[in-house]
């Protein structure tokens, strides 16, 4: 392998891995059991996993069709649409949280109507956590799936059309299976981003143990009082998310490596 690639690659690995090493070195292993058994840790972890998974499902439901529109439609507004999709990527998450208030909050455009008509208020609920995470994480899925759709051979869709498949059937039976690996990759990115989401969540959903306090929020607050506890929680979150991703990867590869 050529050195101009190998050296930066090695530096890149160190750059990404060393903070992790730092975290592990500083982990107070002797207190690990006590810290993990602390009330609220299991609750926060469970809430994190559940809300990140729900956010990923919601992102799939909305994001895959959106990616299709971006990749396949020839509408003139597509450039604007793509810019809109990437907004949550560049928006500071806290600002995203405030923006969600302005729409879905009690005083928000949609939120006030929901409150008046159905008595539904979203902020400070687990629903708000899922919405905040979806807002921040869905663009990762959309961009990933759009890339897969663009890379996929569109002639397969032509073939399907000549075989009597309407656009919806073509999408369901040809396009979707073809880009399945891209969707899986996007879903993983989306889930990981949702799991680590902090800013939009703490702003829009608030922070209350059991309903809205996810692991990143717990870590942040622990950091204010007891950095050791924060490190333990971080390592726990890291371990669980890595284990989940590796497990899923094995499943996918085991299923015949559609990629």
């Amino acid at each position, binding site marked *: 392998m050529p050195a101009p690639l190998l050296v930066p690659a090695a530096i890149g690995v160190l750059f990404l891995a060393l903070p992790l090493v730092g975290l592990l070195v500083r982990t107070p292993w002797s207190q690990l059991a006590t810290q993990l058994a602390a009330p609220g840790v299991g609750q926060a972890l469970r809430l994190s996993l559940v809300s990140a998974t729900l956010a990923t499902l919601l992102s799939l439901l909305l994001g895959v069709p959106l990616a299709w529109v971006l990749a396949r439609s020839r509408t003139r507004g597509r450039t604007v649409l793509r810019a809109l999709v990437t907004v949550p990527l560049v928006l500071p998450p806290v600002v995203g949280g405030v923006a969600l208030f302005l729409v879905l909050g009690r005083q928000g455009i949609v939120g006030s109507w929901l409150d008046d008509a159905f008595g539904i208020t979203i902020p400070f609920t687990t629903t708000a956590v899922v919405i905040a995470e979806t807002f921040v994480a869905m663009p990762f899925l959309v961009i990933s799936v759009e890339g897969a759709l663009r890379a996929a051979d569109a002639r397969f869709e032509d073939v399907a059309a000549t075989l009597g498949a309407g656009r919806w059937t073509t999408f369901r039976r040809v396009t979707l299976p073809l880009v399945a690996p891209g969707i899986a990759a996007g879903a993983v990115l989306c889930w990981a981003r949702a799991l680590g989401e902090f800013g939009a969540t703490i702003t829009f959903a608030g922070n209350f143990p059991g309903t809205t306090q996810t692991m990143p929020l717990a870590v942040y*607050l622990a950091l204010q009082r007891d950095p050791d506890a924060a490190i333990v929680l971080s390592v726990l979150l890291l371990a669980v998310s890595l284990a989940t991703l590796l497990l899923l990867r094995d499943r996918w590869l085991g299923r015949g490596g559609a990629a």
Partner: protein
Amino acid sequence: MVPRMRIDRRVLAGLAAAALVAGCGSSEGADVPDDAVSGTLTVFAAASLTEVFTALGGRLEDANPALQVQFSFAGSSALATQISQGAPADVFASANEAQMAVVTDADLAEGETQVFTRNVLQIAVPAGNPAGISGLADFAREEPALAVCAAEVPCGAAAEDVFAAAGVTARPDTLEEDVRAALTKVELGEVDAALVYASDVAAAGDAVEGIAFPEAEQAVNDYPVCVLADAPNPAAARAFVDLVLSGEGRRLLTDAGFRAP
């Protein structure tokens, strides 16, 4: 990464002037030391001090044309952590004694720390008080949406103290990571009340109303300031701390909702 705020003179000159008029009558520059200081001054200060310190920095720059004042406003604990990790700051102003202790315990403060102001809790409600909040007892009710700071941060610790003093079992909907986040939710009307500092209510302007309550006296927060031992510009640091402690600084703080020590 420490967010730095470079003072925009045009905006702040106006702010400072307004503050001076309100502070009534002191002849300009009376409290500024005669010895001119120069270079760059870096001040780490609790987020609640943003408006007052920015104005004071403008005053100091006006009196010392060769001086540039930079601020890093953030939560006191974040600032204390950054200072102990070697951040090149000249002055540290904390929102409580505990975070100042992190700095002094590490021998990073030059000389004595001085309490320059105090802050007490108030109940912040959206303009017009739509939920009809009247006192601390309302925090025990189920219906209103309520925000209190998390126990891990200073305003949350103070809140626990006043609730204990009042014998109220609070039922908040969210435990905020800092006082500004709690205030933002009041400003947006997303919570009916939040327990924040009087200075925050003053800073929020017309969007927020403050309700004082007697139990607040149980949790008065002291704000200490110090020149840091490794200050790159100790002379300017001293000048800034003197300005903060001066009658001028005190007036600005009082106008901003703080209480004299």
